[in-house]
């Protein structure tokens, strides 16, 4: 975990230590520190602040993933710098996840995002997803409200089962909605990255402004 604000670092260390399922291997305060202590294979996930005193969390994440392509990345930001996050997805070896710092203090949200990042899944902050409005005239704006809701939950990193529970519909109904969404957004209807592509399309075609 890399965070330069000591108060936040202490709180995140405490939150990441609340479960036995994960272990905090390194706690670094900046880019240089992180590059020294995080060695390939030493960690499954790097939790990185976007803005660090001595550099940039997005560039740090790309460098850490270049050294260790299996490393999952979870970005934390108080600025909602989605541009850097989306730019990184074009070259990242494994999908990244993103939480605003405000959401990262909800233990369940943080722990779920870390686990998802380790498994190569993508989780986008539920708070940011809830604030997202489709852009006027975009393909996402032309989806039905239910399809938009399903797409938003995919961006949050929920499985089809979890989405069906959240919406109170069957899993096959969720799958049908998703196939319609992929078609409408002209995304491939199979392949392991289609959920990631759908999430990024959702972010690009919605506004949080």
């Amino acid at each position, binding site marked *: 975990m890399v965070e330069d604000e000591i108060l936040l670092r202490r709180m995140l260390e405490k939150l990441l230590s609340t479960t036995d399922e994960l272990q905090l291997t390194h706690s670094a305060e900046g880019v240089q520190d992180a590059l020294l202590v995080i060695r390939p294979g030493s960690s499954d996930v790097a939790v990185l602040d976007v803005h660090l005193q001595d550099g940039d969390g997005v560039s740090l994440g790309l460098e850490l993933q270049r050294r260790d392509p299996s490393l999952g990345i979870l970005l934390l930001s108080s600025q909602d710098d989605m541009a850097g996050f989306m*730019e990184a997805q074009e070259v990242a070896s494994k999908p990244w996840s993103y939480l605003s710092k405000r959401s990262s203090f909800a233990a369940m949200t943080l722990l779920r995002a870390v686990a998802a990042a380790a498994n190569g899944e993508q989780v986008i902050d539920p708070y940011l997803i809830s604030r997202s409005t489709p852009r006027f005239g975009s393909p996402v704006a032309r989806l039905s409200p239910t399809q938009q809701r399903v797409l938003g939950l995919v961006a949050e990193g929920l499985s089809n089962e979890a989405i069906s529970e959240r919406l109170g519909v069957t899993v096959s109904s969720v799958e049908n909605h998703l196939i319609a969404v992929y078609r409408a957004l002209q995304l491939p209807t199979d392949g392991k990255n289609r959920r990631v592509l759908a999430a990024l399309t959702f972010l690009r075609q919605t506004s949080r402004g």
Partner: protein
Amino acid sequence: MGAPRPRDAMPRLVVTLTFVNVVLLSGYSLSQWVAWGGLGFVTALGASPLEIVLGMAYVVVANIFCAFLFVWLIDLARLPERAWPLRIVVASGAAAIGAAVRSILVFQVSSPTGLADGVAGWVASFAGFLAAAVTALWIGDLLGRARHEQQLRARQEADAARRIARLEFEDTVHRRRVADHLHGSVQNGLVVAAAQLDQVAADLAAKNEPVADEIREATALLDHIREDQVRALSHALFPVGADTGLVRAIGGILDRLPSTLSGELIVGASYRDVVAREGEVTDLPARVIIADTVEEAITNAVKHGRATGVTVSLDLRPESATRTLTLDVSDNGSGLCGSAPRFNGLERHHARIAAHEGTLTLSSADRGTRLSVTLPLTGNSAP
């Protein structure tokens, strides 16, 4: 023997002008001789055409030789570098010598009728040589002064541009520092405070304490202050992402557009290639200038053009020695009103870009308005 002294262009110009003046003067006196009947006189004395031509050629060569002699003397004395009194004295001396040699040579083919005639010829030559030198020195002085003033003005302009760039850089660094503080200490402090209040509210709610709702309201207020006010202030001071790259800074602006407006960023192949090869090509002040300009262009497109879509195109023109950044912001709004485009809030950006020897123009697009910027890139990425 020492090395030859370097000469700049101005004394050479004076020497050349003097020579040309003397030759013109000689040509003039020869024409005058013909016009006043000299040619008819020698013809009447029985000279053949060949003798007349040879005689005139001799006079021309003699005049040119004297001109060379005269300019050699004034060049030897480095007259253009001397003060006027010394110039007059030395030029007079050189003119006296040049006129004497000329008289001796010319009198070989055209003997004076008497001493007075000979003295008059020498005086005329002396005056001609002196006038030629003085005129050339005077013109040289005028041109030299003009060139000096031009160089002084260019130095002053370069100095002013350097000072402006320095001030702008310091301003950018200061803005970045304040924005970092707002982003770091202030926003993070508000995040932590809101999280702690959340925890207190949850504990109180578990005990059915009604004050839990009031604490949640206070938390919401803190979130509002952080998200809508502190963040907006931070963005206004320093564009998010500008510290890392221009594409990211513009991408951040487009990402924050309201949902009623669609935005697209097209990055040209040249820009992508150079960035992939060499890293970020713009320095920090250039990134801030461009990001601020894009933000203002979009504000204008919405406010004055009622646009619903903007396209930002970014590329490099690498063909010249200095790379030039090109930026186009096109919108689908109502377009420009009238022939003279109104810059509205862009006037300040126009001046900033002009100070960096760039250009900012507004024109009508197929539909809406197009803002075009060129900005020479002076170096690789600065901090």
